[in-house]
């Protein structure tokens, strides 16, 4: 029994070791650069760990062995013309664009020089050479992180080829978002990529970051292991969008760890349309009073997709508010999971914590597992959670049909409305339109 579990991950660790050694061999003169130690520390820790199985409570509903079993290589870039690349952008959105193809940064397609005033972006490599930023980075890495802190974060820090740090100036309110466009083409060799972001919202500033994931080949198989660390200082507001349109055979795991200073706001907007196995962990800890945390999630699972959203909010101090709205549509044999943990600590009086998870399960073989988990230790709080799993309202279908819509037309409209409800919170018209049209396209193909 113990022999088997010790060797359980040995194959995985084997290829990870040789891959890391290849990277180290390529370092040459860079061996003393802080990034080398940064990656090595993560790698060493990774080697001592085990990957989660279904026996682990937090991973009960999501089996990651298919993901872990593969022996990945690093991806290699592919050429895109500007025209081909533009189809992945959002019409009408003026953003700083960073293009990453198969995990490799493409500076030609990016326009990193167009950073708006009040916002600075640098690579993690460069940031680590600055004492203050390095300190902020390590502080974020050391956070508790709830369920978002796991072995995949270490894997990300060991293997990430490009990490970015985005810092705002104090008091800067920046309208223009930073848009990371991740494109995957797939290849003969299964590859993985590790998007990595550190966001630091300085006092009283506000800015938005978008990570969108696209695929040019719907059969492509690859693994995206993303890590985001977010430090929202007092009275700052960070908007974080994750829009996932990966191939139907792709694996995606995202871990986002956030800490919030007093009176700050962290808004996380997530959409999942693609992916074969998708797991999103978001964790936020309140460090000061008056904090607001918003998580919005929408997902549409068809065929045999598996989409898991696991969230954690730590109301560690009084007078904070959180609001989670997750809505999903599942059909065919798809499986959705929502695990929403909220911890309200003993001192966190006057907490307002709301959680809503609604899913439409449209076929006999689709499954939704919803597990709201509220742990409340304070006695003067307002907490509510609602989990509904159901079908479309017959009355609504009848009403629409009585106005001439076909059965299919009525149902599509209602499904789009169901998910659209969440998307309407996404603030930028171009993002809302793009997401709604992607949802529409996927619903029509059904």
């Amino acid at each position, binding site marked *: 029994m113990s022999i088997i579990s010790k060797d359980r991950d040995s194959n995985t660790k084997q290829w990870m070791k040789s891959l890391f050694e290849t990277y180290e061999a390529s370092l040459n003169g860079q061996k003393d650069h802080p990034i080398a130690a940064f990656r090595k520390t993560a790698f060493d820790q990774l080697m001592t760990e085990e990957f989660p199985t279904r026996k682990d409570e937090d991973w009960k509903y999501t089996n990651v062995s298919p993901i872990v079993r593969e022996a990945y290589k690093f991806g290699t870039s592919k050429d895109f013309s500007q025209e081909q690349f533009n189809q992945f952008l959002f019409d009408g959105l003026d953003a700083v664009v960073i293009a990453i193809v198969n995990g490799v940064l493409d500076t030609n397609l990016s326009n990193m020089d167009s950073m708006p005033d009040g916002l600075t972006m640098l690579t993690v490599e460069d940031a680590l050479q600055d004492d203050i930023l390095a300190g902020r980075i390590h502080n974020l890495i050391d956070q508790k992180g709830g369920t978002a802190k796991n072995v995949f974060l270490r894997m990300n820090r060991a293997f990430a080829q490009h990490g970015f740090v985005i810092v705002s100036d104090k008091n800067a309110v920046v309208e223009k978002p930073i848009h990371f466009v991740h494109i995957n083409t797939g290849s003969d060799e299964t590859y993985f990529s590790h998007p990595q972001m550190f966001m630091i919202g300085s006092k009283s500033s506000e800015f938005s970051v978008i990570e969108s994931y696209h695929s040019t080949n719907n059969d492509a198989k690859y693994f995206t292991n993303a890590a985001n660390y977010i430090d929202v200082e007092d009275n700052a507001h960070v908007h974080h969008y994750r829009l996932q349109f990966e191939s139907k055979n792709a694996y995606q795991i995202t871990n986002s760890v956030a800490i919030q200073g007093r009176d700050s706001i962290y808004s996380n907007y997530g959409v999942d349309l693609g992916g074969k196995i998708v797991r999103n962990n978001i964790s936020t800890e309140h460090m000061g009073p008056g904090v607001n945390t918003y998580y919005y999630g929408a997902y549409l699972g068809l065929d045999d997709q598996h989409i898991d959203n696991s969230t954690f909010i730590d109301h560690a101090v009084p007078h904070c508010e959180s609001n989670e709205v997750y809505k999903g549509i599942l059909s065919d044999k798809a499986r959705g999971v929502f695990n929403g943990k909220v911890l309200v600590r003993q001192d966190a009086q006057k907490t307002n914590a709301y959680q809503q998870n609604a899913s439409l399960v449209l076929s006999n073989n689709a499954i939704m597992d919803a597990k709201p988990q509220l742990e409340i230790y304070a006695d003067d709080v307002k907490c509510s959670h609602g989990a509904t799993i159901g079908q479309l*309202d017959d*009355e*609504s279908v*009848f*009403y*629409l*049909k*009585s*106005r*001439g*819509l*076909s*059965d299919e*037309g*009525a149902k599509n*409209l*209602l499904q*789009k*409305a*169901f998910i*659209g*409800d969440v998307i*309407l919170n996404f603030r930028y018209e171009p993002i809302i339109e793009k997401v709604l049209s992607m949802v529409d396209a996927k619903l029509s193909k059904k």
Partner: protein
Amino acid sequence: MLDIKDLKVTIEGKTILNGINLHVKKGEVHAIMGPNGSGKSTLANVLAGRDEYEVESGTVSFDGKDLLDLDVDERSHAGMFLAFQYPVEIPGVTNATFLKSAINAGREAREEEALKPVEILKLIKSKAAMLDIDPSFLKRSLNEGFSGGEKKRNEMLQMAVLEPKLGILDETDSGLDIDALKVVAESVNALRSPDRSFVVVTHYQRLLDHIVPDFVHVLYNGRIVKSGDKSLALELEEKGYDWIKEEVNAVSA
């Protein structure tokens, strides 16, 4: 336009409509009144196509077609419109989106060319103006947070936009104050034409002061027991339904 012959309808074994006979010609407005439980709403719902009701026997011919053979959406394409008593709220679907889908669904079914978004918007706005409805309401979700009066006005707007051959109003006036009621009546009157018919199901005579009917029928125990012109409505207002019930019971005694 609408020809109902000996229609018998049950629900869960209980007979609600017990042989309805009704003939509505083009351009006519027929009012259907009756005490509670007489089957008024059932008639409207059966015509709309709700499948909870069993049609035991009888025929319904609409514009030459066998209505009972048509699916719910097909009835709309054929030119029938039912203004619901309790319109459902559908959050997330805007009034504009809904109307656009409805217009083009009908046009497609009738093999007419789909209207371009610009044309649709123009059509909707002109009808909204005609009904004195603020265009901003088009961006709101369908019936969400609407007052009773606003919901009924929305039904009228849909009817105006879809331009049906037959409009059935199912107790559209219930729960409305006199001002909202006038607006509803004005909408119907604005749509009256020699090619369009209306069946107005109502419990109260008050609406018929404003939508003057050509014929008034009294529904009781699932049958139309009396028909007349608009003066019948006034008689019912004065005397109530008891005298009709007595008449019917005397006949069957």
